[in-house]
């Protein structure tokens, strides 16, 4: 358990350090994620060293954003005031993302891959 925490929080800490050092606006957690994937790929750490902790965190990810979601109560007036732009922009954009991703993938996908 300590080793699992060390790996996850170690990667996150390196991410925090890089953000502090360079001032880039990329979340430290994204840097930590890429670092963890790299360490696994380079065989510097084994998958079973983090598996328990990572499975727990990923399967409960939804729960962790309940409190920030509750902060919404502070912004109910913003949402009420700008409801139309928020809803229209969100729905239209989501349809566009679905179609753009799907079409591009179908276009560049080699036919032989469908059997994979």
């Amino acid at each position: 358990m300590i080793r699992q925490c060390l790996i996850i929080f170690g990667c996150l800490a390196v991410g925090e350090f890089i953000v502090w050092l360079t001032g880039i606006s990329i979340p430290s957690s994204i840097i930590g994620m890429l670092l963890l994937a790299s360490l696994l790929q380079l065989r510097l750490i084994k998958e079973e060293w983090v598996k328990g902790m990572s499975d727990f965190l990923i399967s409960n990810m939804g729960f962790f954003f309940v409190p920030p979601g509750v902060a919404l109560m502070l912004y109910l007036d913003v949402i009420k005031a700008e409801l139309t732009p928020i809803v229209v922009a969100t729905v239209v954009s989501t349809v566009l993302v679905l179609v753009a991703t799907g079409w591009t993938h179908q276009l560049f996908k080699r036919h032989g891959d469908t059997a994979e």
Partner: protein
Amino acid sequence: MEILQNNIILLALTFGIFYAARQLQKRTGWIVLNPILVTIAVLIVLLTVTGISYETYSQAGNYIEFWLKPAIVALGVPLYQHLGQIRRQFLPIFLSQLAGSIVGVVSVVAIAQVMGASRETIISLAPKSVTTPIAMEVCQAMGGIPSLTAAIVVSVGLFGAIFGFKVLEVWHVKNPYSQGLSIGTASHAVGTSRAMEKGDTYGAYASLGLILNGILTALLAPLILQLMGI
């Protein structure tokens, strides 16, 4: 009601409501009864009724929210597991993710801007397609309202989970891999859980879209907003 302001009691309440909401969704099978959305709604009503401020609740909530960042780091494990697949089909996956990510940020920002949304709202909308922890961090890094992002992201996920496959059928995206990838790219974890129900292949590609678009949007969104003069 003073005792309700106790951190431990507020934490237990949050766990309890989420558990009940999840049971409710299991029983009814209604995807609209998303446990995250239901729990947020119930807590807001409860806090408003009892007169507990958000500041008080957030002292308890911080113990839960704290785990968001480590959870994103943990996504490095499935990313590593998918690396082989990504490498074999690098070009179609990478190009479609790039298209989805750019279209997602540019279109939502452009539409919101034309319709007269405020700067803070536009920034909060920009990362709407990616999974909430990533979206909130991106939003915070750019100076938006993270909790507004959280609410929008959950709504986008629900929209994608309910209508995503229908939209894809109508627009002639029939390939199962392309469908899964698109659902994950557009509607993150909520869409991915719907794709998992349809089958493992859909689910695997959806989670691939969820992770890759999360990374791409985190990297590209600040740049795109800068280029668009936000």
